[in-house]
C-alpha cells in the first residue's frame, strides 16, 4: 500500500489544523472560559497525534501526545489558562510546525527547544513522563513453540448481541489460535421460554483448547467483550509461566525492528501540492466533455466534407474556440487559493509584536476568501508581514500618546483583500500617527536622496520611504530594525507584477495598497510590430498611443531624444534600436508612439504599428535562455511565432540610462532567431 498520498494529505491537513489551533488559541485568550473553543483546540492536537503516529512520525506524535495531555487538563478545568501557559502553547505550535516540516522530509531532529518545551509542559501539567514507547503500536507477539492445554469458560453477557457482536465470532477467533479438543455448551443460564428474550444471549461454553499462544493472547480474543468476568482461561499444562516470560522477552525485539523500518519510510515530499475545490474540478470535467463533443462533431464533418457543410464546421469551430477559452480560464483558477491561508498567520503576529513593544493593537481581517494565485500568496507573505511590523512599530502610537490624542487606547490594523477588475488589492491600514512629512524630508536630505531646496509634493515625500537605504526609525527597534527596508517590500511586490502605493494622513493613519495581478501565468497584451518582429506590451502599462506630429521630436545635447506631447517632454525610446531590428521607417512621424507609464514616470516607445490586443500566456525567458533587460518573457503567438513580452519598468529604466550615439551597436545583439532556438529547446 503506497502511503505517500496519505502522508502528503496529512501534511496539508495538519497545516490547516495548526492554523485552526492557533486561531482558537488566540480566541481563547479573549474568552478563556469558552469550552467549545477548548474542545476545538483539543481536537486539533488529538487528530494530529493520532494521524502522525499512524504514519510513523514519531517525533510529531510524541510531542503532540504530551501537548494533548496538557490540553486535556485545560479542558477539564484542572488547569487555568495563565499568560505563561498561553505563551508555552503558542511556542508549542511553532515547534509542531517545525516538527511537521522535519517529518515531511523524513527526519527527526532533536531540537534543543523540544526538550525544553516538554519540560515546560510537564511542569504545567505535572503530567507523567511519557516515553516514546507509549505511542508505539502494539505489535502482536510471535507465537511460542510449546503447545499448552487450556480450559476456557466463556459466558458472554446477555446483551452481547445488542452491541452488534456475534458470540460465535469469539469462538472463531479462538479456533484460529489453536485447536479445539472439546467444546461443551453450558445451558444452565437458559430461562423458561416465557421469560426468554430473543435478543439476549443465554449460552455459555467450556472449551478445551490446545494452543501455542500465551494466556494473555488468548484473552485478547475476547477483548471486545470488555468484561473480564465473562471469560476465564486456565492453563492445564505446567509450562504456562515460562511461556509468558518468553513472550515478553521476544516482544521488544520486534518492536525495535519495526521502529527502524518505519523511520526509513517517509520520503522527501517536494514539489508541493494544491488542494482544489471539487466544484472547480467538476466544471473542468464538464468543459472537457463539451470540448470532446465539439471535437467529434468536427471530426465527423471533416470526414465527409462537402462545401455545404462549411457552415456547420464554422459553427463547431467557433464553439470549440469558446470552450477552449473557457477551459483555459478555468484551469487557471485551479491555482487560485483563498488568501485566508496567509492571513491566518497575522493574528498571532500582531499579538506577539504588539506585546513586544507594549502597545495595544487590534487586527481586523476582511476578504480572506479572496482567491489568489498560489505562487503569489507564497511570495506576498514577507512583504505583508513587513508592512504589519512597520504599522505596529512606527504607525500605532503607545497607549499614552493615543489617549492624549483622544484616540481609543487600542490601535487598529485593518487588512483587506478584494478583487477589482483584473487585479487583487490588499490594503493594510492603521489608525496610527501617519507619516511624518518633516522627518521623512529631513532624513532624505541627510541621506542625500533629495536636495534641501527641492520642492516636494506629498506624493513624492511618501514615495521617498520606498527608496533604498531609507529608514526613519530614530533608533533601531527590535521589530523593524532588521536592515530590510520598504524598498525590499516594493521590489518584492513588483517582482510579482504588482505595485504598492501609500496614502497617509497625519494623526489619522497610513494605508498601503498592494495591487497584484490575478495570476502570473496570463496577461492582456497589446501586440506591436517593429520591422518583421512582433512584441507584446502589457495592456495595463499603456496610457495612450499617438501619431507624432512633425517637429515634436527633439534631440538633446546628451544624444537622448524626447517627444513633446501636450507640453510634456517624454523620453523617446526607439524599440528597433534597443532590439536591433530593421524598422519600416526611422521617422517617428511614419510610425506610432505608445506611451507607457510606470510609477508615474512615462516614456514613449516608437514602433511601426499596433496590432491586435490579445491574451498571452507568459513563458519565462530566464528558464530557457537568459535574463534580458527590457524583456519580461516571451509568448507563442497563434501562428506559432515567438514574441517577446516587453518589460515596462525595465524599459523606463533604460530611458534613464545615458543614451548611446546613433551609430552605436544595438543594445542587444540577441536576435529573435537565437531566442527562438532557445525556446524550442
Amino acid at each position, binding site marked *: 500500500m503506497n502511503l505517500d498520498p496519505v502522508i502528503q494529505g496529512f501534511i496539508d491537513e495538519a497545516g490547516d489544523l495548526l492554523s485552526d489551533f492557533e486561531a482558537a488559541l488566540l480566541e481563547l485568550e479573549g474568552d478563556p472560559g469558552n469550552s467549545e473553543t477548548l474542545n476545538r483546540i483539543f*481536537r486539533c492536537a488529538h*487528530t494530529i497525534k493520532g494521524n502522525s503516529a499512524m504514519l510513523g512520525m514519531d517525533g510529531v506524535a510524541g510531542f503532540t501526545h504530551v501537548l494533548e495531555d496538557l490540553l486535556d487538563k485545560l479542558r477539564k478545568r484542572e488547569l487555568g489558562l495563565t499568560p505563561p501557559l498561553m505563551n508555552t502553547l503558542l511556542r508549542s505550535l511553532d515547534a509542531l510546525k517545525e516538527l511537521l516540516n522535519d517529518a515531511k522530509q523524513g527526519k527527526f531532529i532533536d531540537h534543543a527547544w523540544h526538550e525544553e518545551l516538554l519540560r515546560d509542559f510537564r511542569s504545567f501539567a505535572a503530567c507523567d513522563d511519557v516515553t516514546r514507547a507509549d505511542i508505539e503500536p502494539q505489535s502482536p507477539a510471535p507465537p511460542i513453540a510449546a503447545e499448552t492445554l487450556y480450559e476456557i469458560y466463556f459466558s458472554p453477557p446477555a446483551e452481547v448481541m445488542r452491541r*452488534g457482536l456475534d458470540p460465535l465470532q469469539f469462538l472463531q477467533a479462538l479456533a484460529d489460535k489453536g485447536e479445539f479438543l472439546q467444546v461443551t455448551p453450558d445451558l444452565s443460564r437458559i430461562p423458561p421460554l416465557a421469560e426468554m428474550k430473543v435478543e439476549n444471549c443465554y449460552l455459555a461454553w467450556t472449551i478445551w483448547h490446545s494452543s501455542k499462544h500465551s494466556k494473555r493472547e488468548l484473552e485478547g480474543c475476547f477483548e471486545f467483550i470488555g468484561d473480564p468476568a465473562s471469560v476465564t482461561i486456565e492453563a492445564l499444562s505446567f509450562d504456562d509461566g515460562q511461556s509468558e516470560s518468553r513472550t515478553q522477552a521476544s516482544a521488544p525485539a520486534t518492536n525495535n525492528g519495526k521502529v527502524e*523500518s518505519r523511520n526509513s519510510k517517509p520520503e522527501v515530499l517536494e514539489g508541493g501540492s494544491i488542494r482544489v475545490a471539487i466544484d472547480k474540478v467538476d466544471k473542468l470535467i464538464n468543459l472537457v466533455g463539451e470540448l470532446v463533443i465539439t471535437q467529434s462533431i468536427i471530426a465527423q464533418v471533416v470526414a465527409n466534407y462537402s462545401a455545404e457543410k462549411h457552415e456547420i464546421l464554422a459553427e463547431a469551430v467557433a464553439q470549440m474556440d469558446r470552450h477552449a477559452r473557457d477551459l483555459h480560464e478555468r484551469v487557471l483558477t485551479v491555482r487560485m487559493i483563498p488568501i485566508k491561508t496567509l492571513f491566518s498567520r497575522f493574528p498571532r503576529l500582531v499579538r506577539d509584536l504588539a506585546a513586544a513593544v507594549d502597545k495595544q493593537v487590534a487586527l481586523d481581517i476582511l476578504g480572506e476568501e479572496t482567491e489568489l494565485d498560489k505562487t503569489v500568496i507564497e511570495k506576498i507573505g514577507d512583504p505583508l508581514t513587513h508592512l504589519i511590523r512597520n504599522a505596529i512599530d512606527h504607525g500605532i502610537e503607545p497607549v499614552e500618546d493615543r489617549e492624549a490624542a483622544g484616540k481609543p487606547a487600542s490601535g487598529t490594523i485593518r487588512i483587506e483583500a478584494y478583487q477589482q477588475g483584473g487585479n487583487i488589492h490588499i490594503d493594510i491600514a492603521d489608525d496610527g500617527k501617519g507619516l511624518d512629512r518633516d522627518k521623512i524630508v529631513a532624513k532624505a536630505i541627510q541621506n542625500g536622496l533629495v536636495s534641501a531646496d527641492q520642492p516636494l509634493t506629498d506624493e513624492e515625500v511618501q514615495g521617498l520611504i520606498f527608496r533604498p537605504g531609507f529608514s526613519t526609525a530614530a533608533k533601531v527597534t527590535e521589530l523593524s530594525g532588521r536592515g530590510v527596508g520598504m524598498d525590499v517590500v516594493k521590489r518584492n511586490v513588483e517582482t510579482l507584477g504588482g505595485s504598492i502605493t501609500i496614502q497617509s494622513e497625519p494623526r489619522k493613519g497610513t494605508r498601503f495598497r498592494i495591487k497584484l495581478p490575478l495570476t502570473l501565468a496570463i496577461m492582456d497584451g497589446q501586440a506591436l510590430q517593429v520591422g518583421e518582429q512582433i512584441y507584446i506590451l502589457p495592456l495595463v502599462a499603456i496610457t495612450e498611443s499617438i501619431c507624432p506630429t512633425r517637429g515634436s521630436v527633439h534631440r538633446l545635447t546628451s544624444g537622448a531624444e524626447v517627444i513633446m506631447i501636450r507640453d510634456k517632454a517624454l523620453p523617446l525610446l526607439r524599440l528597433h534600436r534597443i532590439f536591433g531590428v530593421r524598422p519600416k521607417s526611422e521617422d517617428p512621424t511614419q510610425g506610432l508612439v505608445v506611451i507607457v507609464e510606470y510609477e508615474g514616470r512615462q516614456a514613449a516607445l516608437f514602433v511601426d504599428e499596433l496590432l491586435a490586443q490579445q491574451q498571452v500566456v507568459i513563458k519565462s525567458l530566464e528558464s530557457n535562455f537568459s535574463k534580458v533587460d527590457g524583456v519580461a518573457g516571451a509568448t507563442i503567438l497563434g501562428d506559432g511565432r515567438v514574441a517577446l513580452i516587453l518589460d515596462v519598468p525595465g524599459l523606463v529604466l533604460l530611458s534613464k540610462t545615458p543614451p548611446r550615439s546613433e551609430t552605436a551597436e544595438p543594445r542587444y545583439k540577441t536576435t529573435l532567431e537565437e531566442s527562438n532556438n532557445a525556446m524550442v529547446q
Partner: protein
Amino acid sequence: MTKTALIVDDSTTMRRMIGLTLREAGFAVLEGANGKEGLGQLDAAPVDIIVTDVHMPLMDGLSMVQAVRQRQDHRFTPILILTTEKSDDMKQRGKQAGASGWIVKPFNPRQLHEVVCRLLRMPCAPSGETPTL
C-alpha cells in the same frame, strides 16, 4: 457480495487511510466527517459495518453510536470505535454506548482489516506481508 463500511472521522487523513485499507479488502466505503454526517450516510446505502472516531465536532462518536443503536435497522450492526485512549474508561464508555469493539490508534491497517473481518465473520484474506507504516 460487496459489504459496505461507513467510516466516520473528522480527519481526512484517517478516513483516507481506513478507506484505502477497506477498499483494498474489497469493501465499498462511505464516509462522514462527524457523527451527524455519519448518521446521514446510513440512509444513503445499506451499511454493514461502521468505523468511527470518538472526538469529532458537531456530534461525537459515542453519541453517534447511541443514535445508531436507536435505529431498528442498525441494532445489530457491528460498530468499531477508534480511540487513542488506552485507558479502560473509553472502552467501557464505548461499550455502554453500544459499540461492538474498539481499535486503539495508532493501528496498523492489517489489524483493522482483521478486526473488521472478525466482526463480520468473514474470512480474512490470507495474511500477506504486513504493510509497513
